[in-house]
């Protein structure tokens, strides 16, 4: 196209760099949040899969056992009796660094003689530098690790160091380094401690047992026959599976978590879109006289549209590029929170760095550019479509806006109703988010109508109580509706999101605290240290239960054994426990009659948690198949209880039945009831003194509840960060909007100064107007935020996690939200007010 014409448009943002910068920041932040969440999720998933695949090596199949693992005899049987030479035993576990306790180290115990075909890069004497097979076997507590891990732990070759395994300190000696030329594998070696299988068995308390037997079976008829032969000889409780299946079922556990994070990050993008729309609307509104002139001298609609799209496109491209960079940086900050949440509630994962792949970047770029184009399209279309004679009159646009407001309001109401219907009728996560989006957009569309109504209501009062300047401020909100409404809507959405997330988290907290009060009744709890905070699956040392039961002051103990139970899809938590009649009221029932539940439970039935029932669509009376050491057993479901410990689902059965079906006599935790008059904290101390050399986590009822709530709060940390980011994006939006809006009225303000308004009155006028916008945003945000909270609590949360939550009314949240809206609006008005009050009236009057 033409050079001078291009200049006329492209110089516009250069002459208003702050406005352009704010638009770029808006796009960049929206894109950054989406990319950061994607990269953080992807990095955690890849780190897990990478470490799984490195540890799995070239195995095609694997044998896995029940909670106790696989007896060593099975390995001999496979290798010697069946002659499967390509088989390797593995023992796995976790340790934490004593130096940095948040660092999770993976212990991998291997048989160096069987390893070569499986994991050549981990085989001592293969790539391992400075080590020999003999050193690994002969040196007590010898390990190999990567240089990077050694550096992180501050350990040199030949040096001894200490780690913590299940709360016990364990000395180790670094006898060699694991190296690989492949950087991907190198990353997978991070935080891996490789040792001899016999040593690992001792460290992890698994003497005589294996976690897994890896196999390489040919992908031929011979291999298939061998697989059948192996399956036929396996003892009950040992299954043959593939490494991919196991990894997939574990990563599927985090699907809901990832979807919810992505949805929250998209919300930031929606707010960002409003910002872009806002900025581009301003750009067009400010330039209507210019567009009118250009149209008069012969520039076509298509050329105007092209000019605006290219200018907006430049902002979008710059914003997106900056957003990608910001997103990668933000991912570095978020990865810790994501990994901690996964560790807290799903599975142990070590993520030392982020992995940037193409997909999150492409997604961010497409969303950023796409959102910008959509946001640009409306004002561009409007500018290009309007006849030049109308474009030349600035007021025409406002007249048009006022005419459109009732229609927009009606469409908004329709969208909100549609959103509600979608959420009500389609119980699917993506449909629910689509419904929520419709609700949000609908709310944004009714905002101008509510603004007009409220201002009509307020104007006479404002004039009567605060004088003419206040009346002008109210009037200005309406007369500049094309600009004020978008800014108010953007702020309203951000504040509504704050309310929705705040109410959802508060509801969760209230529900969980109530649930903890009902379910956690014992005075003292004892468990073994674990990596995954919400699952006490590590076994207690033998004899702890009987010793504690004999302690003076102990009335009774309640035994628990928790294991991760593999199923056809994701694993579930199986808790086997003692349930005395006195314990019956520690359950809250979602379905089933307690009078019938308990007899059935003691007989042959199980009880399951609400999330499991919802996920698998199970009801009382159905059966659930449990893979026991004695084979698959279908047990009837007697009742469905409320549970907020894990969304994966919980299956409960009496501990005696568990011990009869599983070759596992171990316990995971104990609940201790003290006799009347005995102090719980005193009992905690007594138990600790009783086991001076055993790593036990002993907590009083109060401490456990506090710790449980702390885990809950930790899992919401990332939600709060995203909510804050969305609010910042909205703040930038309203700041940009108000700055642009006030500065384009410099001439009007000059006139007001000329007729006698002093700078203080201009301050009042500008801040009065912006605070009114904040008030309107807050007022609309309250019902909308509440509706969004209800959607999150009753629909999205239930579909994603299967939890029934009580709706918590927390007045504080609403008060804070209102305050946020007003403070954000007032803060955003300060710089324009300052600039306007300083401008000389003569200069202002000269402004075109």
């Amino acid at each position, binding site marked *: 196209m*033409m*050079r*001078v*014409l291009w*200049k*006329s*448009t492209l*110089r*516009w943002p250069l*002459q208003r760099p702050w406005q352009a910068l704010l638009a770029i920041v808006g796009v960049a932040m929206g894109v950054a949040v989406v990319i950061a969440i994607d990269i953080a999720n992807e990095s955690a998933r890849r780190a897990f899969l990478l470490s799984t695949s490195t540890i799995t090596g070239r195995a095609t199949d694997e044998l896995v056992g029940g909670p106790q693992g696989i007896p060593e005899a099975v390995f001999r049987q496979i290798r010697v009796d069946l002659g499967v030479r390509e088989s390797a035993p593995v023992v796995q576990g976790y340790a934490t660094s004593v130096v940095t306790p948040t660092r999770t180290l993976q212990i991998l115990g291997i048989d160096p003689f069987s390893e070569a075909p499986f994991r050549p890069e981990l085989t001592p004497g293969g790539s391992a530098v400075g080590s020999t097979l003999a050193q690994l076997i002969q040196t007590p507590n010898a390990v190999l690790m990567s240089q990077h891990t050694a550096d992180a732990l501050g350990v040199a070759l030949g040096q001894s160091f200490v780690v913590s395994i299940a709360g016990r300190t364990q000395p180790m000696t670094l006898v060699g380094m694991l190296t690989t030329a492949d950087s991907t594998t190198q990353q997978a070696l991070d935080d891996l401690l490789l040792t001899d299988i016999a040593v690992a068995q001792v460290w992890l308390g698994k003497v005589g047992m294996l976690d897994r037997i890896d196999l390489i079976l040919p992908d031929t008829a011979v291999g298939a026959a061998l697989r059948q032969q192996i399956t036929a000889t396996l003892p009950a409780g040992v299954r043959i599976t593939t490494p991919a299946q196991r990894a997939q079922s574990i990563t599927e556990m985090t699907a809901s978590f990832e979807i919810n994070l992505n949805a929250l990050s998209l919300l930031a993008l929606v707010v960002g879109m409003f910002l872009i729309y806002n900025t581009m609307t301003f750009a067009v509104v400010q330039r209507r*006289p*210019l567009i*009118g*002139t*250009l*149209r*008069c*001298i*012969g*520039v*076509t*609609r*298509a050329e105007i549209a092209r000019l605006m799209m290219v200018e907006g496109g430049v902002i979008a491209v710059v914003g997106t590029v900056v957003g990608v960079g910001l997103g990668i940086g933000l991912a570095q900050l978020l990865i810790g929170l994501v990994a901690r949440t996964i560790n807290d509630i799903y599975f142990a994962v070590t993520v030392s760095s982020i992995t940037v792949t193409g997909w999150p970047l492409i997604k961010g770029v497409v969303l950023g550019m796409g959102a910008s184009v959509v946001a640009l399209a409306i004002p561009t279309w409007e500018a290009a479509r309007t*006849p*030049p*004679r109308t474009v*030349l009159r600035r007021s025409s646009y406002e007249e048009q806006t006022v005419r459109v407001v009732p229609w927009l309001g009606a469409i908004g109401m329709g969208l909100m109703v549609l959103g509600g219907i979608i959420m009500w009728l389609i119980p699917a996560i993506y449909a629910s988010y689509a419904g929520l989006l419709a609700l949000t957009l609908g709310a944004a569309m009714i905002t101008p109508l509510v603004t007009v109504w409220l201002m009509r209501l307020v104007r006479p009062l404002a004039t009567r109580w605060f004088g003419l300047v206040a009346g002008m401020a109210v009037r200005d909100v309406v007369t500049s509706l094309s600009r004020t409404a978008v800014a108010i809507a953007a702020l309203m959405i951000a504040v509504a999101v704050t309310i929705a997330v705040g109410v959802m988290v508060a509801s969760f907290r209230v529900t969980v605290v109530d649930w903890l009060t009902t379910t956690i009744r014992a005075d003292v709890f004892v468990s073994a240290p674990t990596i995954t905070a919400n699952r006490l699956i590590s076994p207690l040392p033998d004899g702890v239960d009987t010793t504690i039961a004999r302690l003076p002051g102990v009335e009774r103990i309640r035994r628990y054994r928790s294991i991760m139970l593999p199923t056809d899809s994701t694993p579930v938590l199986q808790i086997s426990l003692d349930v005395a009649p006195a314990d019956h009221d520690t359950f809250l029932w979602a379905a089933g009659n307690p009078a019938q539940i308990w007899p059935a439970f003691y007989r042959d039935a199980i009880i399951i948690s609400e999330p499991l029932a919802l996920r698998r669509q199970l009801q009382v009376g159905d059966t659930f198949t449990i893979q026991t050491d004695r084979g698959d057993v279908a047990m009837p479901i007697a009742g469905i209880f409320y549970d907020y410990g894990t969304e994966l689902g919980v299956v409960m059965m009496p501990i005696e039945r568990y011990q009869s079906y599983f070759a596992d006599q171990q316990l995971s935790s104990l609940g201790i009831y003290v006799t009347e008059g005995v102090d719980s904290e005193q009992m905690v101390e007594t138990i600790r003194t009783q086991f001076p050399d055993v790593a036990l986590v002993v907590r009083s009822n109060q401490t456990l509840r506090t710790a449980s709530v702390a885990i809950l709060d930790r899992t919401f940390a990332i939600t709060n960060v995203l909510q804050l980011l969305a609010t910042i994006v909205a703040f930038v939006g309203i700041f940009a909007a108000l700055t642009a809006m006030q500065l384009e009225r410099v001439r009007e303000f000059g006139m007001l100064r000329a007729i006698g308004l002093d700078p203080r009155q201009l301050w009042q006028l500008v801040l009065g107007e912006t605070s009114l916008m904040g008030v309107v945003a807050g007022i609309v945000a309250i019902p909308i935020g509440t509706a969004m909270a209800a959607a999150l609590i009753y629909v999205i949360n239930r579909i994603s996690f299967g939890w029934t939550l009580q709706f918590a009314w927390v007045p504080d949240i609403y008060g804070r939200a209102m305050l946020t809206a007003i403070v954000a609006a007032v803060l955003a008005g300060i710089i324009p007010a300052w600039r306007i009050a300083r401008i000389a009236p003569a200069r202002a009057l*000269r*402004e*075109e």
Partner: protein
Amino acid sequence: MTIVSLRDVHKWYDEGSTRRHVLHGVSMQIAPGERVALVGKSGSGKSSLLNIISGIDYADAGMVEIGGQDINAMSEVARTQFRRAHIGFVFQFFNLVPTLTVIENVLLPLELNGIVGAVAQQRAASMLDRVGLLARAHTAPDRLSGGEQQRVAVARALVHDPLLVLADEPTGNLDSDTGDQVLRLLTQLTADTGRSLLMVTHSREVAASADRVVRIQAGQLRTDTATEPVI
């Protein structure tokens, strides 16, 4: 031959539930090189008529021929193309493009008509010279006085050699001395180039400078006389 030929032109505007009839069968002609002043009170239909003649609005009935072409029958795009080639505009509030320098403002119509490079630069410089602003060629418009800005607007209106120059209250935003200067310049330049000029004005002086005054009242042409006193 006539440059402007209007026959029985009607225009209505929808205002809510009512239709306002703003032009009631207007007919008029403007000859090549003729300078015509269009006068009338506010709301009489002056601007509507100017908009229809320029092609930025259309007539609801009647025929509008500019340079022998019926622009009312043209598509929106064709009207725009016609305007860029054959019409020059001078606005009351100058309406210079604030992001372009003085010379770039004058270059814009040339560029829109495909005239670029040295030829365009030369024509723009020459036109600026004629309005006495060549020395300010690279200045931003907001650095100029009102009179200077309007002189740039005059240069921009004439630089691409249009058939017809339309001026909407060209002196309405200027003091009388400056207004006189701009008016002299506008009439002089259109006379020199042989272009027709249609000026909408309230000013007796402006009307007096025209060859003919057309008076419009309530959407109808009342008089079409040579330099009859107005207002």
